[in-house]
């Protein structure tokens, strides 16, 4: 394990679960309420300055249903950290990282529309890849792939597969 990974693990030990290194990436499972503290420490103390990505995994029918996954990269150490947390469908809310990283704005919007995860503190969760008024969250496992919601209606007589 890289020395910086050891230091992160020691410094954040009370906040994180079973930390491990998988394929060269440090994986930190945390509880949702520790997010800002953990990511703040990663950014300020350990120089993980590049916010790469946020996405979610829908583990239907497991409970809690969603796993939200963040990736960070340090341009100094040239290493990556993955932070994950589980949230239930009923309160699929995590803190927004927009206060720490500008790039979180767009990526949280995408994760919000695709999975319905709410990022507390991100005031702008408008659709970005989908359109205004789109119903449902398409990357959830219970959203049928065939369902179509055309913004421009089809011609008369055309039957929409999986339509409402």
């Amino acid at each position: 394990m890289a020395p910086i990974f050891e230091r992160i693990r020691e410094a954040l030990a009370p906040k994180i679960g079973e930390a491990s290194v998988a394929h060269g990436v440090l994986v930190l499972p945390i509880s949702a309420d520790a997010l800002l503290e953990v990511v703040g420490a990663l950014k300020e103390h350990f120089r993980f300055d590049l916010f790469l990505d946020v996405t979610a995994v829908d583990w239907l029918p497991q409970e809690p249903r969603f796993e939200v996954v963040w990736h960070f990269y340090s341009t100094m150490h040239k290493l990556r950290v993955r932070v994950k947390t589980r949230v239930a469908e009923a309160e699929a809310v995590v803190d927004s990282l927009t206060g720490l990283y500008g790039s979180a704005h767009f990526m949280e919007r995408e994760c919000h529309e695709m999975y319905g995860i709410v990022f507390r503190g991100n005031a702008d969760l408008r659709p970005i890849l989908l359109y205004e008024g789109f119903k449902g969250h398409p990357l959830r496992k219970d959203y049928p792939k065939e369902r179509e919601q055309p913004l421009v209606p089809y011609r008369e007589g055309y039957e929409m597969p999986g339509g409402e």
Partner: protein
Amino acid sequence: MEMKLPNPIRPAFTKPAREDTTIVNIGPSHPATHGTIQIVAEIDGERILRADVHCGYLHRGFEKECEAHTWHNLIPYVDRLNYCSALINNFAYCDAVETLMGIEITPRTKYLRTLLAEYSRIADHLTCIAAALMELGAMTAFLYLVMLRDYIYEHLADVTGARLTYSYGRIGGLARDLPEGWLTRLEEILVQYEDFVGRVHGLVDRNRIFIDRMRNVACLSTADAVNWGYTGPILRSTGVPRDLRKDTPYLAYAEIDFEVPTGIKGDNYDRYYVRMREMDESVHMIRQLVDLLQEKGQGPINVDDRRCVLPPKHLVYSEIESLINHFKLVMEGPQVPAGDVYVAHESANGELGFYLVSTGGGTPYKVHCRAPSFVHMGGAHRMLEGYQLADIVPTFGSINMIGGECDR
């Protein structure tokens, strides 16, 4: 037929902040139509005060579709992310699956993938620069560069069978080996490259009009670029040598010599120049890789692993084990061990990452693509605000947004 279409977007602002400013809607499309975007901008005369950038017009449910196909069947889909350098997408995706399966590719495939990735990078940068120059009226430079790009496309078609969407990567190897005489033609094209890119340098670099349009326009500081998630040529144009090929070497990049060109202040001119220099470095790399391929890269292209590589055709027709193996691989897909992985390659636009989740079957549970263009569009307003309306076109050209990977 009269039809009222609902507005697909809701602008972030609809009322001007001041009395003497106006809100204009630009797009979807135009900014010289590299990709379909929409910009809602508040302008004071010709100056942009704030901008709200929208993308998503090319969204086609890539990630959803991936969950319904076998690991192999996704290769044609990843081609269509960044269609200017589809091979880099292919190899990044295959690398991610191979990491999850614990497969180490053969030396020949390693060198070939590196070579073809650099070749694609040249094609991608040529497209970007050619289009950006054409939008500023430089038709000759455009024709020179696009001519080169087409030589490369045709040459890649010789090995892959397609001009644009190659589907050439395979999990554990490649679709086929190089045809006879391919490397000879490669050197011919590289010589032509040097000639014509030299002419473009002569036409453009010190051209007064070009400098006026590009220098000090859309400046980006390193801190800003990192904060907004910029990677690739845009981050390097701000003056820092951040390149995954150097920082976290993959494929054969640790074995070859190359420099990481950087800019001075992250303006449009720097982004143009960094791309031009990167192409030169790619040519330098390709020549080393041709030598490496001949010295150390002999042998098979596919790994000997029946979990992912199809058995030889004559065995499929002559023995039952191979027939079953072939059937299982095609119908059920390669069985990828459960787990998740994030693998990133330095694509022509920046960090292209694949986050894959497997539950142990022949179909991915989740495929997420960290597309550089999408992240770049999230910070694009930083490069537009404070500059002229007419600067949108060269700035957007220098970001090189690719709709396929941005909107997925």
